C-alpha cells in the first residue's frame, strides 16, 4: 500500500531552488534511508514535507495516505500522522514536557474526533513510552528541551514519536551528535515502533545508524534530485567509496 508518493517536487528557499524534481514512493511497512553529500537537499525535503514556512513549493505533488499533503497547514500534516524528529530540537522555556505533550496528543485526538485523554491515562502512557528511550522521571516537569544534553534532546524526539504514533516518521540526522550508547537507545525505540502500517524516512550521513535501523531501500539525494536507489548494500558502498563515483556516473566529475 502506498503511504507517501512524491511526484516531481520542486521547492525554493527565497529565490534559490533546492529541490529540483524529487520523485519518491514509500509503502507502509518500509524504512527508506536518504543519504547524500552536504547541501544536497536532505533537510529541505523533510522541512517541505512537514510544511516549514521557510520553504516555498514551486511545483509538484505529494500524496500522503490518499490526501493532498501540500494543501494542509503544518499542524494538520502532523495530525494526519507525519512526524519529524528534528535535527536541532527547539527549546521552549517555561513549557513543561507534560503540558506540551498533552496538548499535542489531545490536538491529534480532537482532529480524529476523539475525546481528550484523561490525565491518569495520559500520565500512564507517558511513563510507559518514556521507558522505551530510557528518559528519566524528571522529564515530565522539565521545560521542552531546555537544558537537555544533545543526546537527551534526540531521545526526547523519539519519545515524542512514541507518544504520537505517527504513520510516517522522518528522522533528520537523528544520529548526529550521539554517542554509541545513545544511538543504540534511539534505534531500539525506532525499531520498537516499526510495524506493517507505518513507515520511516531516515536521513543520515553514516552507515552506522543503518546497522541499527536496517532500511529496505537506500536513496542518494544529490543536487535536489534522487539520483540512485538501491537496497541496503548501497549504504555500505557509500561508506566505503564516498560519493565521487556517483558524481562520475552523472558526469559531474
Amino acid at each position: 500500500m502506498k503511504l507517501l508518493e512524491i511526484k516531481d517536487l520542486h521547492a525554493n528557499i527565497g529565490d534559490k531552488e533546492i529541490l529540483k524534481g524529487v520523485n519518491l514512493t514509500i509503502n507502509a511497512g518500509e524504512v527508506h534511508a536518504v543519504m547524500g553529500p552536504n547541501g544536497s537537499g536532505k533537510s529541505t525535503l523533510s522541512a517541505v514535507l512537514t510544511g516549514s514556512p521557510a520553504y516555498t513549493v514551486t511545483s509538484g505533488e505529494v500524496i500522503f495516505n490518499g490526501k493532498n499533503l501540500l494543501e494542509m497547514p503544518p499542524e494538520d500534516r502532523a495530525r494526519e500522522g507525519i512526524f519529524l524528529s528534528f535535527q536541532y530540537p527547539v527549546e521552549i522555556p517555561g513549557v513543561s514536557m507534560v503540558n506540551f505533550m498533552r496538548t499535542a496528543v489531545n490536538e491529534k485526538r480532537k482532529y480524529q474526533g476523539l475525546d481528550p485523554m484523561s490525565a491518569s491515562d495520559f500520565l500512564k502512557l507517558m511513563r510507559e513510552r518514556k521507558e522505551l528511550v530510557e528518559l528519566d522521571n524528571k522529564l515530565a516537569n522539565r521545560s521542552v528541551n531546555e537544558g537537555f544534553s544533545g543526546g537527551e534532546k534526540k531521545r526526547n524526539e523519539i519519545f515524542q514519536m512514541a507518544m504520537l504514533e505517527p504513520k510516517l516518521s522522518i528522522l533528520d540526522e537523528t544520529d548526529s551528535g550521539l554517542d554509541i550508547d545513545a544511538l543504540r537507545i534511539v534505534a531500539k525505540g525506532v525499531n520498537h515502533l516499526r510495524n506493517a502500517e507505518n513507515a520511516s524516512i531516515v536521513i543520515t550521513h553514516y552507515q552506522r545508524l543503518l546497522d541499527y535501523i536496517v532500511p529496505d531501500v537506500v536513496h542518494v539525494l544529490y543536487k535536489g534530485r534522487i539520483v540512485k536507489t538501491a537496497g541496503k548494500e548501497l549504504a555500505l558502498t557509500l561508506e566505503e567509496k564516498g560519493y565521487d563515483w556517483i558524481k562520475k556516473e552523472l558526469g559531474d566529475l
Partner: protein
Amino acid sequence: MEEKKENNIVDKVTKEEYKYGFVTDVESDTIPKGLNEDIIRMISKKKNEPDWLLSFRLKAFAHWQTLEMPHWAHLDIPPIDYQDIYYYSAPKPKSAQKDANGVDPELNKTFDKLGIPLQERAQLSGMAVDAVMDSVSVKTTFKESLAELGIIFCSISSAVRDYPDLVRKYLGSVVPYTDNFFAALNSAVFSDGSFVYIPKGVRCPMELSSYFRINAAKTGQFERTLIVADDDSYVSYLEGCTAPMRDEAQLHAAIVEMVVHDRAEIKYSTVQNWYPGDKNGKGGIYNCVTKRALCKGDDSKVSWTQVETGSAITWKYPSCILKGDNSVGEFYSVAVTNNYQQADTGTKMIHLGRNTKSRIVSKGISAGHSQNSYRGEVRVVPNAVNARNFSQCDSLLLGDKCGAHTFPYIQVDNDTSRVEHEATTSKVDEDQIFYCNQRGISSEDAVGLIVNGYAKEVINKLPMEFAVEAQKLLSVSLENSVG
C-alpha cells in the same frame, strides 16, 4: 508570504471579543457632570461623611488645581476633559426588591455573569469578596465570619463611618494627596473601595478580594483601598476589574495604600482586565493608578503580583517603601499590550532600613501596534546598610510593529549594598512555533503555550484560582499574534 501571514494573525487577534463588554441595565443615581468644590461637597454629603474627610477632599482638590498632568511616562495620552466626567454614579435599584443578601437582583445577575457570585454559599471556598460597581460597594461577603477574628473587611465608606479612628490614622499616610496629579484627584473625589484591617497576630484564613466594575457611561472610577496589617499578621488580597465596551475612553484613577507593621506580611495580587479599547485604539480605560506599600515595621514583607492585560493606557507603579529593618519588598509583573494599547508600568523599591531586600521580576509582552514600557526605580539611602536588590526585566515581542522599552533608575548611596539588574528582549521564535506546529499544535495555541511559559514565574505567584484565570487571559489576549 511572511508579511501576509503576520497580518492575518494580527487581524485575527483584533477580532477577539472582550467578553466582559456588556452593560447592566440599571438606573443610576448620578450627580451632575464636572468637577468643582460643590461637586466634592455633594459626593461627601451623599456618603454622609464627617467634616475631617470633607476638608481632606477640599485640600486635595485645591492642590490638584495647581498641578499639571504628568507627561514623563512613555505614553501618548490624549487630553482628558475633567469637566466632562461624572464623578459619582451609584446603581439605583429598579424597585425596592432585594434578595436575601440585600442585593438588587439585577446587580446579582451582573456579578454572576462576571463569575463573582455574591451569595456566600455559591462562592469559591476560602474567598471573601467586596464588589464595587461605579462609585459604590454593592456587597461585601463573609464580613461577619471575618469579624469574629477581629478582621475588618468592608467598603471604605462604611469604614469611615464605623472605624473613623483607624481610617483617619492611615488614610493618606502612604500616598499623601500631594503625591502626584492622579493621587490628588483621587483624594478629592474618591468614592468607594475596600478597607482591610488585620489585627495583631492574626493570619487571615481566606483570600480577600475586591472586584471593581465600571458600568455607567462617561463615569470615572476613583476607588480607594486601604489595607493595614498589624504586627505578626498575614493577608492575601486579590483585585479584579472589568468594564463595558464603549467608544469613549473612561478614566480610572485609584489609590491603594498598604501599611505593614512588625513581622506582618501582605500579598497583593491584581488581574487587571479593563476594557482595552477596540482594534483601532478607540475607547478603553485610562488606568492611572497609584499603589504603594509602606513596610513600616521590622521584618515586614510586601509582595505585589500583577497581570495586566486590559486598559487602553496603563500608568501604574506599585511600590514598596522598605522602612523597617530587614523588611522585604517584591514585585512580580506580567504586562501584555496588543493593538494600540500603551502601558508604562513598573515599580519603586525605596530602601530606607538596614538589611532590606527587594526583588523585581517584570515580564512585558507586546503585540500589534502597542507600546510596552517597564519603568522602575531602586533607591538605597545612606542608612540602608546591606540592602539587596535583584531586578529582572524581560520583554517579549510578537510581530514587528510593537515596541518594548525599559527605563531602570538606580541610585545607591552606600557601599555595603548590592543591586543587580538583568534585562532581556526576545521575539517569539518562528522555529518554536514550527516545532509546536509539527507536533499538531496550531500557531495560536503555540503562542499561548510559549507566552504562558514565559510568564510562568509570575503566574506561579498568584493564588491558584487566579492563576488559572490569568493563563486563559494571556492566551486570549494574544491569540494568533505571531507569524
